[in-house]
């Protein structure tokens, strides 16, 4: 145990020193710390009853019967536990660092100690998550209902923690056992999976039966969650759901008993896990390697790389379906390449871009559209907000592109053309998004069909051009996406520049429409002309920076 403790303590001390030695690293850290603290303080203030929640819409919860709240909590907890354990058959959740694999695992340090320390660290982490979530979400909610959180809130937190630990221990055990007994224990595995699956299946059966009988979906769901098989298989989740309502309802003797049972289960599952004789190092190899790679990518803001890894994990995939045929030479060929790469790497995002707007519009139509009928013709102005949002993702793409700066710079293409190709690439995706969004509006909400929508469609790509060409500037200024501080600064600058880029459009829009009372189309044309000018300036500036940019220096 001694070497392990030495390792942990030295690492903690060195990390603190490392973070505090440079303001570049300290500032983002402090900001994040302040953010978390503000949540915690707010949460504890709710707990002690100092402030009342700002959101009065908690009234919705006030009108829900207690059984419903309990049923919702129960469904979330039981489905969550089931998924975690189900997944444990194929991939584990015990993640060690690569350094552990390379340097700790070969040493004679007892495997049991290594496991113990790892579990201990995980438990602390989970306990922290539960407390944090409870303070952030639970505290204001209870406060909205006018109940004091303590002392019973503490009981709720510890009950959820016990359930979480049980699930975690069991899933570790399942994964370890089935990694080695893959063939031998196949039947047992199938049995456990069936046992886990039987709850939801009977629940659905019960629910449908009840729905046919009563015609009330609400009653059927309640009935299904209370059906006997579900109650038996997911008893711990049920206890936990009840205990989460302790601040509201108080605690009965039976619930105290359940609370003790939850902790007994946590203890028993821990003992089960520790009693396993298998080599716990091996099951963690694959997952740890993958996890380390992903974390590294994320830390460096290399999202495209992470996506490529995800593609790789699925195995070599035949890229069937639509593809973009090659076109162009020089800078236009560069544009083709960027379009294709982005399309291939983020297919699921492209699909989301098609589906989400339709869904959003659909929901709007069926919820608030009736109450705001006179505003609907002006609703397309939201498109400008969509443009702004989509522009914010552009710098990340740009910086990913600049990872290949060595190649880009050695090409016989003028720097500004390289930048223009990158910008146009992003503008094309943005325009596609805008078109889908406006198409959905046109189709689902007829009131929006009119000059505002059409002029917004005309103006959007040019606004996008202005925005994106400006956000490209921090992208080339701080191209090292392996550096946390550069990522941070570049993100901050792009946010600022995008907001700056919108100003001409807003000013011109107000002038045209309110002072000179021009038509929407005229306004759109004038604004677009201004945006082309802004965009051209942006491309020129980033081109100049890119020309002087030395890809070999860090």
């Amino acid at each position, binding site marked *: 145990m001694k070497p392990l403790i030495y390792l942990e303590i030295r690492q903690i001390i060195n990390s603190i020193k*490392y973070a505090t030695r440079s303001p570049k690293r300290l500032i983002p850290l402090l900001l994040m710390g302040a953010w978390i603290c503000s949540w915690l303080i707010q949460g504890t203030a709710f707990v002690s009853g100092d402030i009342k929640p700002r959101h009065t819409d908690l009234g919705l919860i006030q009108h829900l019967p207690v059984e419903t709240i309990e049923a919702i909590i129960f469904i979330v907890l039981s489905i969550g536990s089931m998924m975690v354990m189900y997944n444990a058959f194929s991939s584990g959740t015990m993640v060690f*660092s690569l350094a552990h694999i390379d*340097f700790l695992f*070969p*040493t*004679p340090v007892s495997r049991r100690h290594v496991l113990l320390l790892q579990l201990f660290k995980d438990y602390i982490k989970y306990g922290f998550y539960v407390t944090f979530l409870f303070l952030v979400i639970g505290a204001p909610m209870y406060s909205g209902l006018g109940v004091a959180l303590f002392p019973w809130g503490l009981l709720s937190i510890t009950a959820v923690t016990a359930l979480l630990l049980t699930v975690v221990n069991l899933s570790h055990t399942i994964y370890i056992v089935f990694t080695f007994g893959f063939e031998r224990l196949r039947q047992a595995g199938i049995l456990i999976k069936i046992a886990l699956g039987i709850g939801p299946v009977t629940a659905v059966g019960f629910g449908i039966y009840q729905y046919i009988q009563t015609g009330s979906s609400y009653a059927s769901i309640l009935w299904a969650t209370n059906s006997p098989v579900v109650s038996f298989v997911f008893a711990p989740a049920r206890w936990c759901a009840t205990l989460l309502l302790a601040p509201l309802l108080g605690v009965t003797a039976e619930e105290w008993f359940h609370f003790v049972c939850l902790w007994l289960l946590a203890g028993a599952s821990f003992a089960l896990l520790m009693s396993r004789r298998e080599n716990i190092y091996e099951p963690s*190899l694959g997952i740890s390697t993958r996890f380390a790679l992903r974390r590294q990518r994320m830390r460096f803001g290399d999202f495209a790389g992470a996506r490529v890894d995800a593609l790789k994990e699925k195995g070599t995939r035949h890229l069937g379906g639509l593809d973009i045929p090659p076109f162009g030479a020089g800078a236009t060929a560069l544009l083709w390449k960027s379009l294709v790469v982005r399309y291939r790497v983020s297919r699921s995002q492209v699909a989301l871009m098609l589906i989400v707007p339709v869904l959003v519009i659909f929901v709007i139509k069926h919820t608030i559209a009736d109450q705001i009928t006179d505003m609907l013709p002006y609703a397309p102005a939201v498109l400008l907000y969509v443009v702004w949002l989509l522009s914010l993702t552009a710098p990340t793409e740009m910086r990913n592109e600049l990872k290949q700066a060595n190649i880009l710079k050695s090409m016989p293409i003028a720097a500004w053309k390289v930048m223009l190709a990158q910008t146009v690439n992003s503008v094309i995706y943005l325009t596609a998004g805008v078109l889908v969004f406006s198409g959905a509006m046109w189709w689902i909400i007829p009131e929006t069909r009119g000059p505002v929508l059409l002029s917004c469609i005309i103006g959007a790509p040019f606004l996008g051009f202005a925005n994106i060409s400006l956000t490209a500037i921090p992208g080339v200024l701080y191209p090292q996406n392996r550096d946390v501080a550069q990522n941070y600064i570049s993100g901050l600058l792009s946010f600022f520049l995008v907001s700056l880029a919108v100003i001409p459009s807003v000013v011109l829009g107000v002038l045209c429409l309110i002072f000179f009372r021009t038509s929407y189309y005229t306004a759109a044309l004038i604004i677009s002309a201004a945006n082309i000018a802004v965009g051209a300036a942006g491309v020129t500036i980033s081109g100049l920076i890119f020309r002087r940019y030395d890809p070999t220096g860090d």
Partner: protein
Amino acid sequence: MLRVSNLTKYYKKTLAVDSLSFDVRDGEIVGLLGPNGAGKTTVLRCVTGIVQPTDGVIEVEGVNLSTNEEDAKRRIAFVPEVPTPYEMLTVYEHLRFIAMAYQTMDSFEERAETLMHRFDLYDKRGDLVLSLSKGMKQKLAIACAFVHDAHVVLLDEPLIGIDPRGVHELKEMITSAKQEGKSILISTHMLDTAERLCDRIIILRKGAIVAEGNLAELHERARMGTDASLEDVFLTLTEESPTNLLAPQ
């Protein structure tokens, strides 16, 4: 002395090592050669107890790894393939942690100092591993392997990414370890190193031995003249065609 008998390793359904048997005697350097995915790393990971053999016996100086794991592991030093050391330790602390883990703290200071001088790490002993280059991390991994006095030394592709001076030092360390009577097993792609450094070479393909012996024996096995290079022998023996399936010895 390292003895591996009938070692078999399945990762779920993938067969990575197929009933492999070999010895590394005292004062001997054995090279483990084979194309990518042949199972070299898996063999070394079995011997160091990182993965659990599906079948077979591993003995380190007569100590059985599966029944007496901690004792067996104490006798082994291991340099992993493309090592990822603890980034948040300093070079010195890293060496110290390894020595603590192997419970060999006496005369640690002198040994650490010598090793750090040998591998150009002395100036960086207070620096975080985070700031080391790839080659320096490799050197640190080698220093970690030699900071405890193990009798069996395993090195997984140790020569990748270090500068000529580092390679020279490592070769010196390996030969002097051999003179001290240690058993050394090196997995490598670098055929010329294997040719010059190793007393015996084991060629693996798909987890099984296709040939074993010193250079002359390998030439004979591949039915090539002595003027053929190890590269030719390697390519012939690891080729996919069935004509290379060798007659049993």
